[in-house]
């Protein structure tokens, strides 16, 4: 396989014509002799067969249509998967119920009534980030990534601990209260540098998202996390807050005949109350109010003077 391998005859002649006439014969001779000078690398049929088999293995030996379909299927799968990844995993607890949810890394979240929790499908791979609207108690295991709870106005960052986050987006002013029962957490708003460290038995609150959260102070753990045992604990809370708590806990709607009713403050403790009417009865007696049943709950009114 030597002599066939020449460029087009015309091109070859063109090459020779570029030499003076008296050199052309010599050049032609050198041209012809050149291939015989090159040592050939012999490649036998077996080597070609083996090489072909290796190439077939890499390009796939099945019919090409299969590849076309496989490629299409792969694209559909990728689109579907990225769609799944795009939408976070979401846990919603209906009013009147509480729930315990185990996260992919084994950390446990106890969710108070009406709470919504969201986290990425990639939780544990890229980080451990939780979006919280409501109230939850976290038991966080040590992990590779820091565990962060994001609320409407603040972030709580921990490594391994037990703590409670309360932050209802529906409240008039966004606020987040963090209570730690074990370990330590970092609590901050807009600025990760302006955080406070909250230790075991301490509590801090951030209203709005600018600035630093309040300095930690000793917490009333029963008040902060009594909900986990289905207790109701109110310590100098506004009635509007208390009623929203009751709405979530018992799955009822409570309306106020006069919005000013919500501004009065009350402290109360109930151990595992079964019946919202008993609680309402007490509140109304203490505060001089009346309540009447509605189709989906109760209406609180001031008695006529």
């Amino acid at each position, binding site marked *: 396989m030597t002599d066939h391998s020449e460029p087009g005859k015309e091109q070859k002649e063109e090459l020779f014509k570029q030499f003076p006439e008296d*050199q052309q014969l010599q050049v032609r001779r050198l*041209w012809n002799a050149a291939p015989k000078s090159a040592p050939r690398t012999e490649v036998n049929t077996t080597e070609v067969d083996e090489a072909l088999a290796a190439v077939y293995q890499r390009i796939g030996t099945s019919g090409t249509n299969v590849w076309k379909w496989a490629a299409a299927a792969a694209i559909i799968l990728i689109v579907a998967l990225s769609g799944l990844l795009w939408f976070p995993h979401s846990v919603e607890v209906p009013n009147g119920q509480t729930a315990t949810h185990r996260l992919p890394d084994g950390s446990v979240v106890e969710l108070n009534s009406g709470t919504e929790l969201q986290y990425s499908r990639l939780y544990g791979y890229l980080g451990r980030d939780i979006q919280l609207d409501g109230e939850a108690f976290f038991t966080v295991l040590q992990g590779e990534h820091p565990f962060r709870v994001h609320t409407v106005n603040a972030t709580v960052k921990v490594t391994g601990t037990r703590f409670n986050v309360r932050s209802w987006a529906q409240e008039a002013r966004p606020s987040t209260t963090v209570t730690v029962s074990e370990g330590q957490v970092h609590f901050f708003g807009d600025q990760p540098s302006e955080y406070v460290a909250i230790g075991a038995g301490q509590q801090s609150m951030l209203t709005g998202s600018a600035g630093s959260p309040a300095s930690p102070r000793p917490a009333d753990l029963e008040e902060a996390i009594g909900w986990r045992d289905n207790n109701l604990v109110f310590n100098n809370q506004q009635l509007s807050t208390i009623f929203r708590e009751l709405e979530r806990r018992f799955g009822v709607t409570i309306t106020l005949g006069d919005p000013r009713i919500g501004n009065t403050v009350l402290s109360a403790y109930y151990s595992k109350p079964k019946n919202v009417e008993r609680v309402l009865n007490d509140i109304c007696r203490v505060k001089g109010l009346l309540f009447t049943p509605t189709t989906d709950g109760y209406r609180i009114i001031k008695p006529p003077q």
Partner: protein
Amino acid sequence: MNQPSDKQIDAWTRAIAESDKDAFERLFRHLYPRLIHFTMRYVNNKATAGDIVQDAFVILWEKRRKADPGRSIKAYLYRIVRNRALNHIRDHSSRMIGFEAVEAPPAETDDPAEKLTDRDEAGLEKRMHAWIQALPDRQREAFELSRFEGLDHEEISSVMAISPNTVNNHIVAALQHLRECYEECRQSEK
């Protein structure tokens, strides 16, 4: 070996673009030994050459639908192989110098049978090999692609990423070089 015509290769090229494995296999059987031989000029190691040439065919198959039917499939394969071979030399030249060093030209011999005379074709061929090896790299590549691999100027221009005009100039310069060596040799023999 039965040598397929350029027309035959063009037909295979079109069939390969339609995912015809039969045509792919024919082209492979035709070009694989030649490409190995060609690659060996750069890497001088048969296993490495095998990897490089097989890579080129895998790439050809993967890109078969984007292939421009007007372009030479031969030039396409030679270009991939040449680029990979040059990359291989670049990446391995320090570590594997022993393996990859270009084969040394045969030593000058005192054997009178190999003294060059006008009639002594065997002697001429031996010397020519050394002269070709001694050519500047680009001249040698253009000359070898033309004379040994049978590519036309357009194909060489695509393989080496230079203009067809430059291809011509390289080949002419190479022939000029070889002719001077030959003259010099003939003078010293006299």
